């Protein structure tokens, strides 16, 4: 029997999950890496540490199931998106810490570039600190001598997929989904767009070759490395959302609602992103509309690590259940500004509605409810853009272990919320794409047969309560914007 090993290089940790042919989990290994916060608003990772961790989790996952590389039919890769690293082609040394997607240091670069919708037609994205292109530009402007070295072809740029594939196989490539998050790729041609590249002022020589999401890029220890997908696209794939109109929302560090729009990119009128969903080998790419929320699970983690009222993420549910409601408190976690549908980099977090009545239990509720209200905002945008209302929400990711949150989510969206039988859809999607590339699975239809409902939450909230809660949430959101001033850094 052979297996597929998926490597998920995430924001907080790297993991390797080994799957069997039915999509069942055979083993899991995971390692966290350091979150480096040099200043408020800045977030970095050490790319070398991440590469070390990735090798370790692959080793551990195989060892736990008593497997060797010979038992693995292919490796699949999925990764935190937009996080940017530049390294020396000769030594493999990064020239700077990786700049993480949540990092807001490119605020000034973004302002300089002017009209936020300037690149939307070509790239599908609004100008925001979130994407890789501006981060690369910042590195070129701020790391001494980097631009000259880049022009001489001495350094390479990549998102985490590229960094891993380069280390695993020696090839300098990225996949269409990751490339679609750089703001440098043209959505129609699926290639670097000369106008975008020159507007961002980055040397073409340092950019990787753009390939499909499911093909053999090379080998590691004799095993084909056969897929790369941004983590949210991988989750879409893992949920087998292969038909236009199918979508999912993944709850990890942030929350990301993606809707498959088929072989045609759809431009959003409501603050959503247009992105590539996946591309299998030579087939046409599938596009997606995306509602990206920066902070959901990260707020729970912040509550655990920085506030210390709980000692594990799951305990927030226990604490939240000590009270019946939020007591009137609303928590808008605009830690990196607001992402979809607002795109306000000048926003910062608030807790609104504080009174002497508010206890830690109410705060725990407000923390969890924030994930649901933020989802409602992007679902409303998605409904407006697509002209049809969502009828069920498919969910996945670590936060789906939280029953209180899942019930509340169903309540505020007023639709059933459904979790599939593998909550680790990010890894599963990367495994599926790799398995398809090497013939481990025959077709996407075969994958669909693996999808099963594992849990379902039905809405049960009074409409009046929902409307009031949403009204208060929106008022709380209004209070976050415009917080940052010129002299803040």
């Amino acid at each position, binding site marked *: 029997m052979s297996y597929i090993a998926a490597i998920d290089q995430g924001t907080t940790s790297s993991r390797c999950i080994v799957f069997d042919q039915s999509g069942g*989990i055979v083993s899991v290994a995971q390692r966290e890496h350091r979150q480096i916060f040099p200043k408020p608003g800045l977030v970095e990772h050490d790319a070398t540490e991440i590469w070390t961790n990735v090798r370790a989790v692959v080793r551990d996952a195989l060892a736990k199931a008593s497997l060797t590389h010979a038992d693995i039919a292919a490796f699949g890769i999925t990764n935190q998106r937009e996080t940017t690293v530049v390294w020396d082609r000769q030594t493999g040394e990064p020239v700077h810490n990786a700049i993480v997607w949540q990092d807001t240091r490119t605020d000034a670069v973004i302002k300089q570039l002017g009209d936020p919708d300037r690149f939307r037609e070509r790239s599908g994205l609004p100008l925001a600190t979130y994407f890789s292109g501006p981060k690369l530009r910042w590195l070129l402007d701020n790391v001494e001598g980097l631009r000259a070295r880049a022009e001489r072809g001495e350094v390479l740029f990549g998102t985490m997929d590229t960094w891993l594939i380069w280390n695993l196989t020696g090839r300098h490539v990225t996949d269409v989904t990751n490339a679609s998050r750089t703001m440098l790729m043209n959505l129609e041609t699926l290639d670097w767009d000369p106008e975008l590249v020159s507007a961002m002022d980055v040397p073409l020589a340092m950019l990787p070759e753009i390939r499909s999401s499911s093909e053999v890029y090379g080998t590691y220890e004799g095993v084909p490395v056969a897929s790369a997908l941004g983590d949210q696209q991988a989750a879409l794939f893992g949920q087998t959302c292969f038909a236009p109109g199918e979508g999912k929302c993944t709850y990890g560090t942030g929350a990301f609602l993606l809707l498959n729009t088929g072989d045609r990119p759809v431009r959003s009128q409501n603050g959503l992103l247009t992105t590539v969903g996946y591309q299998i080998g030579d087939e046409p790419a599938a596009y997606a509309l995306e509602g990206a929320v920066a902070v959901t699970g990260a707020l729970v983690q912040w509550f655990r690590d920085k506030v210390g009222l709980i000692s594990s993420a*799951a*305990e927030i549910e226990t604490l939240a259940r000590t009270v019946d409601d939020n007591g009137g408190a609303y928590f808008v976690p605009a830690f990196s500004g607001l992402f979809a549908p607002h795109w306000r980099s000048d926003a910062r977090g608030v807790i609104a509605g504080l009174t002497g009545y508010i206890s830690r239990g109410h705060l725990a509720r407000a923390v969890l409810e924030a994930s649901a209200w933020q989802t409602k905002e992007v679902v409303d945008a998605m409904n407006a853009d697509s002209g049809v209302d969502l009828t069920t929400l498919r969910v996945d990711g670590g936060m789906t*272990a939280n*029953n209180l949150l899942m019930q509340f989510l169903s309540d505020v969206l007023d639709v059933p919320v459904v979790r599939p039988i593998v909550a680790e859809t990010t890894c599963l999607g990367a495994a599926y794409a790799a398995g398809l590339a090497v013939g481990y699975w025959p077709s996407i239809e075969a994958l669909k047969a693996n999808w*099963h*409902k594992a*849990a379902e939450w039905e809405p049960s909230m009074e409409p009046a309560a929902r409307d009031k809660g949403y009204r208060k949430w929106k008022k709380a959101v209004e209070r976050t914007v415009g917080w940052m001033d010129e002299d803040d850094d």
Partner: protein
Amino acid sequence: MPGPIQSIQRAAEVLKLLAHGGAHQLSVGEISRALDLAKPTVHGILRTLQEVGFVEQEVEGGKYRLGAALFQIGTSYLDGNELRAKALNWSDTLAMRAREAVRIGVMHGKHVLVVHHVFRPDNSRQALDTGALLPWHATALGKVLVAFGEWPDGELQRFTRHTLGADELSGQLDFVRDRDWAYDLHELVEGEASIAAPIRDKRGVVVGAVGISGPVERLCESPDQPPRLELVSYVREAARSVSRELGGLSW
């Protein structure tokens, strides 16, 4: 502030020693040698610990092991929500392999509290029953939890003509402790069966049970036979995987 209290420190040393011993029980002499304490001192400590239920003796005058009351205290530290989060991957995989619904239970007073429920993977309409209470004596989950915990007082309600009474049950619990898994056959609902195995934390303490349930014709070879061994092995494998996740077993 007063300094540390010596007798409490010593009692803690004794408990740690017994915990390390695991299933291996220790005599007064062995403990006094290991801790370099006089026998009468050790004896006094053990008698006090025995009174509060923190240590037990198999027979009067015999060797000592950790007591049930200690485990009750320890157990309450594992949050049910935490258990669900840790068990998520493995309960899903169990449901896929067994093609049956999966539940994870912990003791809650006299009942089994369902802390996690995975639907039977056939996409049929099913309702989530996380938070529900089940009778311990008529479910595999409950038998596991009681076999490795404390027998709750209270009446044992008869649900079917197969529901066991106290005597038969206590015999079955020996079997559960022996085999490390439990089942029920028509005992809660006529025509239904369940299989469960213990989840252990890093101290080796049983903190929950994971199991499957479904119609007897799918779970057993025939209506009056114990469950199919293939299904039992899936359940036990899932229990071991969750235990590993909790640090309860090495890989």
